[in-house]
């Protein structure tokens, strides 16, 4: 099928299951021309289709970053969560400020995705002189996220700090993880912090 036909199939899908299939097929085509449609799907309130669209966008990688960032303000909250999830998984440093802002979003699923993403940015894409400041910004945001009222955001912060801490030795990460491992009120959070320390 041509890309046009794959896009038409997404627009004419007549059931949630048909939509998921059509989006998966469009994602599998791995073509830049699919990007606007895949981004549109993020707002359809169909989690299966959104998962397939995010997968497609993440596989396309760098070329999807600017289209995602450019449309971010127009998204509803559900779509925003999926878009940030895509940006977080792509890990392009151009997303850094968007992820920092999203780490304080009112929606916990947006905070969760953004916080996770801050640990997995491809820092090597930055010029060497910009790297330390960018990592510091990420670290500062993640340490704050360790105090989030939602367990899943704290959990995501641990996963991100674990990755960031492997990248480079940054002040404060280990002691913060030690505190979470012993004093957090959620067992799953304590356990994940312990694994990050081991």
């Amino acid at each position: 099928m041509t890309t046009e036909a794959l896009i038409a199939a997404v627009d004419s899908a007549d059931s949630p299951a048909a939509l998921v299939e059509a989006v998966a097929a469009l994602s599998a085509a791995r073509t830049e021309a699919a990007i606007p449609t895949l981004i549109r799907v993020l707002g359809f309130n169909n989690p299966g289709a959104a998962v397939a669209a995010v997968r497609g966008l993440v596989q396309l990688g760098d070329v999807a970053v600017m289209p995602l960032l450019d449309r971010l303000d127009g998204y509803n909250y559900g779509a925003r969560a999926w878009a940030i999830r895509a940006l977080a998984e792509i890990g392009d440093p151009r997303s850094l400020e968007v992820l920092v802002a999203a780490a304080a979003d009112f929606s916990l699923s947006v905070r969760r995705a953004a916080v996770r993403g801050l640990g997995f940015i491809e820092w090597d894409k930055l010029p060497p002189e910009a790297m330390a400041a960018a990592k510091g910004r990420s670290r500062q945001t993640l340490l704050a996220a360790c105090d989030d009222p939602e367990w899943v955001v704290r959990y995501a912060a641990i996963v991100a700090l674990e990755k960031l801490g492997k990248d480079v030795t940054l002040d404060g990460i280990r002691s913060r993880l030690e505190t979470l491992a012993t004093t957090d009120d959620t067992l799953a959070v304590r356990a994940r912090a312990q694994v990050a320390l081991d």
Partner: protein
Amino acid sequence: MNRDTDFSSAPSLTIDRAIANLQQTEDTGDRYYAAWWLGRFRVRDRAAIEALIAALEDTTDRSPDGGYPLRRNAAKALGKLGDRAAVSPLIECLHCDDYYVRESAAQALEQLGDRAAISPLLRLLEGGVEAAVRVPGKPYLVQPYEAAIEALGTIGATEAITEIEPFLAHSVEKVQYAAARALFQLTGKVEYGDRLVAALTGPKLQSRRAALLDLGAIGYEGAAEAIAKTFAENSLKLISLKGILEAHLERNDNAQIDDRAVEMMALMDSLL
């Protein structure tokens, strides 16, 4: 489904203010909110518990369909507060003519976990599957079967196994799942857990969501990989896996983190 919670917009109350709001009868909105607030912020003061128990018999706050909104909220709050003094009054609520009060009371009794609730809850199942039909013109069945069956499972009512078993074949999926969930808790047999796992690949999103939450609630380890692959929101899959991880850790000595726990966390990491 948006499970995000936003309390920053909630008017802040003090404990005294909330109790006073609950005890006055002029403003039903303030009473309703106060009942929720006391539960949300786990206010376990004697005065709060007594005011909430009194609210279970409120007759002033009525919905257009004849329901008792304040009673529903008070029952929910009492479930969160964990005070056994609420058990008897909540059991009385199982006879209320408002379906939603009966449902909230059954859920609260599940949270309180008192075996005194077993017989009254079992009475809701009287007549079995044949009697468990929809109320004409309403979106619910004649009794809150789902809540009652789940409560019996959580309370550990092994004497209810025979009565619960037929509900595996009820026409409403959520009732089937409640039965599978309870029977897993009461017997530990994997066949019941596997029924819920099978539901994760069903065609309806609502049903997959219900099965995810049930599996997390019972901590059925065999479901972890299937949960991660389910077509549904990651938020729900994470809640489900958290339940399974924590149940697993609690079974280990000193919550020791073994290889299986690390596998479960890797699944959770992939969903963030």
